[in-house]
């Protein structure tokens, strides 16, 4: 085959996936290309040969080739890699994505690797189009091919995006606008500045850089500096402001490792906080490493009908030579499972989430845990979508359950002092949600469906020697329980729900309410 003049092309239009499987697809592509590309003008006497016979000759050759590829190994290796079209982007960046091609030893492997390389180069977001062509190698070297990579760099390095995202650091969703500058130094670097705004007057201004390849590291590096401010005055009488720097050290499909350095300040401008919150006001240095392991095999994150998901997040704070930085250990996990029923696209989703937080270091048994790191339950979002630890609880308002303390007395407020919700060091939530299509065809087509659900959750304090009074039985007995049902409208940006909640069990100071409410859950 190497001696023939056949030319194979693997051409892909921008923003599409390349597949190397499927004879039919290959046939179509190659045939089309054969028609488009003529190497040299035909000498006049050959024009007498009819077009149909030429085509049928080519076709039979291709069919022979593909039959050979299906039945046996077609040995082929890469002799030379030629990169064209990159004026700004460094060759090394493109070559790094083509490593697999160099190691391919058969035609099949080569086509497969070419497809994957194409997709990776598209993912860098710095090219408008990527074309990988396989050409025959030098005649003196049989079984070789040259790979020609033609790229078209983006004409406009600026892009703007906006959307709604969940922000684990902010403990809520945020609407974010981002401006990106691509490929400033030619290393595939992506610079971005963004502004995000969310509930509880959450606002964040941040800037970041993404480097796909750093010397020695096979995974990309993402660094980000941000200024985040959140107002928890209404729920816990404090405002939080954090100046932080984060560095993503490892980011693969299943694993994520990030280092965070931050200066956090808690203030209380209202001067109405409870004693526990008063003691936590001030400055702290956060230096932590966070490892996340995630498997999500559900068929959809907006409306899962089958599959499972598991997320485990471990955070260790206090990794600094200075022993005065915030020292804590935080572990949370999420488990989700969806079982399809087959009729009306019904599915049962159930899940359990849990988390524990504890300080470490000298005198850790008596120290309180840092207030912003604690677990808080409640809020208008669905546990079906979220994989962010124990946070969602049907029917309860934001930070609406768990340990609380009375605020400072205010004579002018005749309702009596409010309460500060302090969160907990141990949190467990569980839910079951049965979703089903509605009988109206029009709603089914729009993806609108109904659901009934039940949820339970509890928070407990363990620090400052409270763990001595902790008993699993008491913890189980004090679980809050709620049930309900409603309609779900999945949209591109978020999942909107209109639900009726009924609280079966809540405690005296909890802020849960039986009734009808909307909820918004961003895509995770």
């Amino acid at each position: 085959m190497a001696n023939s003049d056949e030319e194979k092309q693997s051409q892909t239009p921008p923003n599409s996936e390349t597949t190397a499987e499927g004879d039919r697809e290959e046939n179509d592509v190659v045939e089309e290309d054969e028609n488009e590309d003529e190497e040299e003008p035909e000498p006049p006497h050959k024009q007498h040969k009819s077009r149909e016979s030429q085509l049928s000759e080519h076709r039979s050759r291709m069919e022979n080739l593909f039959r050979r590829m299906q039945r046996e190994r077609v040995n082929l290796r890469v002799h030379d890699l030629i990169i064209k079209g990159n004026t700004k982007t460094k060759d090394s960046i493109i070559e790094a994505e083509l490593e697999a091609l160099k190691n391919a030893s058969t035609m099949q492997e080569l086509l497969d690797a070419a497809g994957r390389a194409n997709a990776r180069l598209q993912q860098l977001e710095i090219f408008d189009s990527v074309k990988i062509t396989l050409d025959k190698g030098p005649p003196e070297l049989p079984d070789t091919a040259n790979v020609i990579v033609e790229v078209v760099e983006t004409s406009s390095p600026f892009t703007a995006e906006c959307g709604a995202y969940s922000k684990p650091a902010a403990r809520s969703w945020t609407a974010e606008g981002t401006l990106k500058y691509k490929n400033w130094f030619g290393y595939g670097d992506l610079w971005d500045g963004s502004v995000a705004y969310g509930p509880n007057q959450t606002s964040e201004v941040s800037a970041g850089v993404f480097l796909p390849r750093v010397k020695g590291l096979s995974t990309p590096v993402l660094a980000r500096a941000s200024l985040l401010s959140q107002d928890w005055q209404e729920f816990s009488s404090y405002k939080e402001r954090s100046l932080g720097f984060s560095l993503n050290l490892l980011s693969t499909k299943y694993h994520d490792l990030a280092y965070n350095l931050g200066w956090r300040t808690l203030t209380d401008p209202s001067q109405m906080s409870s004693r526990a919150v008063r003691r936590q006001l001030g400055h702290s240095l956060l230096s932590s490493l966070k490892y996340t392991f995630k498997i999500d095999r559900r068929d959809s994150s907006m409306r899962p009908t089958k599959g499972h998901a598991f997320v485990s997040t471990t955070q260790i704070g206090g990794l600094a030579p200075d022993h005065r930085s915030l020292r804590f250990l935080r572990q949370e996990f999420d488990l989700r499972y969806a079982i399809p029923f087959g009729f009306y696209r019904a599915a049962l989703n159930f899940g359990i989430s849990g988390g524990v937080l504890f300080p470490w270091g000298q005198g850790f048994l008596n120290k309180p845990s840092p207030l912003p790191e604690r677990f808080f339950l409640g809020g208008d979002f669905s546990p079906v979508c979220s994989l962010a630890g124990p946070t969602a609880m049907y029917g309860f308002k934001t930070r609406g359950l768990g340990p609380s303390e009375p605020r400072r007395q205010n004579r002018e407020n005749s309702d009596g002092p409010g309460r500060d919700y302090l969160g907990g060091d141990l949190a467990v939530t569980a839910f079951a949600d049965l979703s089903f299509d509605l009988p109206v065809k029009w709603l089914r087509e729009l993806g609108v469906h109904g659901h009934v659900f039940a949820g339970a959750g509890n928070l407990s304090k363990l620090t400052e020697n409270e763990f001595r009074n902790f008993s699993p039985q008491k913890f189980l007995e004090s679980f809050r329980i709620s049930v309900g049902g409603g309609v779900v409208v999945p949209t591109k940006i978020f999942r909107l729900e209109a639900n009726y909640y009924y609280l079966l069990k809540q405690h005296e100071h909890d802020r849960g309410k039986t009734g009808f409410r909307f909820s918004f859950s961003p895509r995770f």
Partner: protein
Amino acid sequence: MEEMNTENNWREEQNFTLVVRKPCFGLPTACPSCLPLYLYLKFAQLHFHLDFSSIYPDSDQIPYIESGDYVAYNNENGGVIESLKKDGIADLDAEFKSVPEWISTKAMVSTWLGDAIMYELWVGSDGSSAKMIYYPDLPWPIGKVLFWKQCQTVMLQLGITKDNAEQKQEEIYNRAKIAYEALSNRLGEQDFLFENRPSSVDAIFLAHVLLILQALPETSVLRNALLEHGNLVKYAEKHKMEQIEAGSSSSSVPQFQSGPSSSAPRKGPSNWSSKPKSKSKREKTKEEKTLRKRAKYFVAAQLVSVLLFLTFMNRSDDEVELDDDDGYGYDD
């Protein structure tokens, strides 16, 4: 007498906690705004627990005193001492309030000597004392930035610029020396500045003297100026021994006088309320709050309906499942 004993017992039951900055330089608290309050409570024989705040050096709320739901912050009502007087908890100044000399002495001690110690801690010295008082428990980068910020704030407050630095320094030191001279003459050989009984002026001045003598380095100008007045040094040492080191008041300290408002025994927390710190924006009435809430819901509903409309309009073109397939990840 019975009334006073009842009040004493009731005050003892209230479990006051005084939150101050950490002890340093052999003093129970080395912060210039916390030590006067500590000494005032000691003079007033009010029993309290001490608690420390070490992570909020730039707060103007500290020191504060708390008991149950009641809290008196430093930045309300002109200070915690004034709050305690107003709420009838501890008032040593009842009989001095209309004495002009007492008022002007208090003003001189609060302003001239207050400015002097602030200058000496943050600007006049190398700042090592201030760092030990305010930033021992904060990590180095935070402490460094806050120290620099506070130095700038103090210079702004005292009106010090590059051009007038020397002149300002001279002015501050001169005023302090004049004040020491006047107070030394005022004190004589007595135990207290006025009528041989303690008042808030004694608490403030004594705190100042103790800090100058113990927290500042030996090269300090203020310290050397103070050491010239032997009776002031003796005054400080005597009260330090009695109030701080001994832990109990000496017999020469008279019983404090109760507050002037009524002779009936006071009720509990309902009389102790303090107004929250009022901000520039006015208080909202209930109706305004409901109106704001409704307006928010209205805007949110509009936004949601627009988004839904846009989504449904595009629904036929898009796939229902919007999730990405398992793409070509980095470890594929």
